């Protein structure tokens, strides 16, 4: 045991403390917005942009998505620091964030008479691509920490990545039908983090 301790002591170097969750989230948000802007420049914004961007419901939806990102982001970053809090508030916020946007879409996209026609993989691909790119940034931030609740941290981390993908779609996809938005924007955001639940313990092992 003595020699083990000595090897730890020999490995000791002055370290830089991690940034606070809020500061770290702002850094992430800026990077995420930059990625979205680049995507919009490459893919061009939605055709119905001018008339659409000024709608109150659209602006509110944007705000809701960004608020979800903030809630999930800060909660996940807090959860990834040992003993930062009891974790109850953060876990509740992640759960609430899962439901906020789906409920909003359910309530404000009332076109219930339409039917689910052609599958639209285009939005799913864009959402997944953005999520993967953003995941490199956010997961790296988490891996620099020491998450003691890897499943919750994983759920939060993946949710923030998929919701960033959904935010990008808000500027690109011109479709406004309930079925399209619900199946190709909302459901992937909710389901991808749940599908990957078995991987979080391995990803966030430290």
């Amino acid at each position, binding site marked *: *045991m003595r020699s*083990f*301790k000595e090897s730890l002591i020999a490995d*000791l170097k002055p370290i*830089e403390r991690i940034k*606070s969750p809020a500061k770290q989230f702002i850094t992430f948000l800026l990077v995420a917005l930059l990625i979205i802007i680049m995507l919009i420049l490459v893919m061009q914004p939605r055709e119905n942009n001018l008339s659409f961007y000024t709608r109150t419901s659209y602006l509110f939806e944007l705000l809701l998505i960004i608020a979800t990102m903030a809630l999930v982001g800060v909660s996940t970053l807090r959860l990834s620091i040992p*003993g930062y809090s009891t974790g109850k508030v953060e876990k509740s916020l992640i759960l609430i964030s899962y439901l906020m946007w789906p409920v909003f879409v359910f309530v404000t996209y009332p076109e219930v008479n339409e039917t689910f026609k052609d599958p639209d993989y285009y939005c799913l691909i864009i959402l997944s691509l953005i999520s993967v790119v953003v995941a490199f940034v956010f997961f790296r931030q988490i891996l620099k*920490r020491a998450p*003691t609740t890897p499943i919750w941290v994983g759920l939060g981390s993946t949710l923030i990545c998929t919701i960033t993908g959904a935010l990008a779609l808000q500027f690109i996809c011109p479709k406004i039908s309930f079925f399209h938005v619900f199946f190709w924007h909302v459901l992937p955001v909710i389901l991808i983090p749940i599908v990957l639940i078995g991987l979080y313990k391995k990803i966030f092992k*430290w």
Partner: protein
Amino acid sequence: MIKFEKDKLLETLMIKAQAGDMLAYRELLDQLSVLIPKLARNRVPADMLDDLIQEVLFSVHKARHTYDPCRSFFAWFCAINDFRVNDILRQKYRHSKKIIKITEERNVEDPDNHERLYEIIEQLPEKQREVITRLKLQGYSISEVAEKMSLSVAAVKMIAHRSYEKIRMLLKENI
């Protein structure tokens, strides 16, 4: 329950350790080595306490940059300790299931020395087993193992060191 003064002392030692003070770090590790068995009391079997102490100290070492002096050291440390206690108990449970399975499959009655050594390696915790297998059975160098397992060279050395101690202990038990 730990006293407030003790928390303050550990906090001070940790702040100094974060700045690279080796003496303070040594004192901190000694204090924690005493504290860990007390916190794990009734949860971890006595024969696993040494492993637990090493795991927790190693985790404290790896996560020391996440400690914020504005927050309680004890809360930070307990979160890490509980995490590792659960980890070690989970490993023990999985391991005992695996051993039963291996024994049933091989139907070993009188294993020779090599087999006994292999069995002992199988009994090591996952990370230790992987390091030993790569170093001693597959012939990789320490730096190659470090690269393959995304660990630092120092970490691989530490894990290997702990594995040797554990193997030695298990061999003695077998004799």
